[in-house]
């Protein structure tokens, strides 16, 4: 007996989507739920949690904890805001580098295009930590950059480049560049040249053509790239650990510390929830503005 077509399609769909759904439910939703629950519990003495409701983990961060142990400290907000700032700067730098580069690559002959894409993904073949140590060799006082600048006579004594926000931003931008390049490239690659020609034909100069045609049409790639650079930059702890040291402390380092050294799992979980809330907040802004511009487009010109 054969099922009617819609029924068969449902079976096909569940076979195709089932494994991915199951995987995400078990390995993504469940840990997330555990973290969310833990963030409202009291810490155990040697890690772990005590099953007792406690909202002061958030109070320590946001300012209503006046208890003897759980003190509000503005440093958490400071670190948090710094992390957002560094992540946004990283996004901006990646975008400024990738957008023109993607334009250039997309106009190359096919074989060169593929070669360039290969070059962009080449860093993935080496270990992240090794690549960051290479940056230490470049940035440290006796490193490549300082030696070169002193040899050229530009500076007399080594610049302090290590353990600065600049070093962290360079490291983050370096790591996440490919994540920005690929979506931006994909949207530029499929941009029909005839739109640019039409704009030019209709009297739009280069700037107007870019601002009114090219930018709006490649916006999905820009937004996509920005999101997938912003999210891991915000929570990153390897780069600030290696290139920022004790001077440039990011929220990722703080979470790592709470879980591994301070043994305060609930507080670490609360910090992690803050990161996630921030990311969701930015995504929400994007979704709302997208829906609004769609609606505006339908209503007026």
């Amino acid at each position, binding site marked *: 007996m054969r099922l009617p077509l819609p029924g068969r399609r449902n079976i096909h769909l569940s076979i195709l989507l089932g494994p991915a759904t199951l995987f995400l439910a078990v390995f993504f939703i469940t840990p997330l739920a555990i973290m969310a629950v833990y963030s409202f519990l009291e810490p155990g003495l040697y890690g772990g949690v005590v099953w007792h409701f406690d909202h002061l983990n958030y109070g320590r961060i946001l300012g209503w904890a006046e208890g003897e142990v759980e003190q509000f400290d503005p440093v958490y907000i400071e670190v948090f805001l710094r992390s957002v700032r560094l992540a946004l700067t990283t996004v901006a730098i990646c975008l400024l580098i990738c957008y023109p580069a993607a334009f250039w690559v997309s106009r190359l002959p096919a074989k060169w295009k593929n070669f360039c894409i290969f070059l962009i993904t080449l860093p993935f073949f080496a270990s992240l930590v090794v690549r960051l140590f290479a940056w230490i060799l470049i940035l440290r006082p006796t490193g490549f950059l300082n030696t070169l600048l002193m040899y050229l006579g530009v500076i007399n004594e080594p610049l302090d480049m290590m353990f600065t926000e600049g070093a962290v931003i360079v490291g983050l931008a370096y790591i996440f560049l490919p994540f920005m390049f690929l979506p931006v490239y994909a949207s530029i690659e499929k941009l*029909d040249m*005839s*739109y640019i*020609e*039409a*704009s*030019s*034909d*209709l*009297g*739009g*100069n280069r700037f*107007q053509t870019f601002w*009114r*045609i090219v930018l*709006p*049409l490649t916006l999905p790639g820009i937004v996509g790239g920005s999101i997938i650079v912003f999210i891991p930059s915000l929570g990153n702890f390897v780069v600030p650990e290696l290139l920022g040291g004790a001077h440039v402390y990011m929220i990722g380092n703080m979470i790592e510390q709470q879980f591994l050294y301070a043994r305060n799992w609930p507080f670490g979980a609360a910090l992690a929830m803050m990161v996630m809330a921030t990311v969701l907040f930015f995504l929400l802004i994007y979704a709302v503005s997208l829906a609004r511009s769609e609606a505006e*487009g*339908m*209503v*007026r*010109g």
Partner: protein
Amino acid sequence: MTAQSHSGHFVDIRNASKVFATPEGKSFKALDDLSLHVSDNEFVTLLGPSGCGKTTLLRTLSGLETLDQGEIRIDGREMAGIPPHRRPVNTVFQSYALFPHLTVDGNVGYSLDVSGVKRTERNRRIADALELVGLSGMGRRKPRQLSGGQQQRVALARAIIGNPKLLLLDEPLAALDRGLRQTMQIELKNIQNELGISFVFVTHDQEEALTMSDRIVVMNGGRIVQIGTPSEVYDHPHSEFVARFVGESNLFAGSLAQIGDGLVELTTGHGETIRLRQDADAPAGEQATALIRPERLYLHDGDEPGDASEWGRLSATLRQSVFLGTDYQLICDLPGGRSLKAFVRDTGRDSVSRLERGAPVTFRYPVSAPVLVDTETGP
């Protein structure tokens, strides 16, 4: 009305050449020392097979391509070095190239927006342009919410709203179905009359070219092979290429002989003879090619109307008869084995439909019907 160039033409193209490099590393002459002029308020069609250079010529007018050699003047102004956005020219693109993120209003008003036209004037002109193309009230839609024909109209409105002095159209009707295409052909011609500007229209569809144009420019291999009014090009093609490309054709190659009374006879290698009127002296024995359009052949039913010497005859065997509505298309075999095509009207609905496959058919044609065309050399 407009400042004319020294040559007195609105558009003047002189000795234009353009060479492209092919991906295989060869070079391809898209334009080969081509000269052409377009007058004020003229509808000129560039007609030719794909790769003949017609689109390249259009793009050099709009400024999207630059010439390797030669010059283009529009309204008396030399166009070299002037970018597309500063030329008094707009284009209707083959793919329409409507901006997908803008509404119909946004698309149509684009050229006004980039030149900073005031909002009230902008909206008024958009409304006028949309009314001209019959799309009033559609301004808030996005291009993807429109049918192919409506998109085509938006592209047209967008191109004419800036009052260009010259409108370029790159196969704008190619994507439309037959009925819509014919409607748009007439509308385009009307709009051109209304605006009073020159149109340069690119197509590979000879029917389109014949319907709309004041003049047709037939192109092949980057060169112009014939320029003329539609009837000139259709009735007196200069070459076999034009005869084949514009309309249906029966071509006969052979040698000429005088038979007196201003008539000559062409005898093919297969033994058919074509009788035609030729006022100029044709030396006996000269090789020539004669063209007879299929609709100039009539079924011979016994007696010719009028003087018998005014008619020529062709005998053949019927291979296939196809009813086209207005006419029957008869495909016949000539005794020499070549095929002959005829469009025959059967008003009484009895003479043609009775003919059976394999039946002998005799056609007659007025001696004014065949014309001599240049014999093609090479393929």
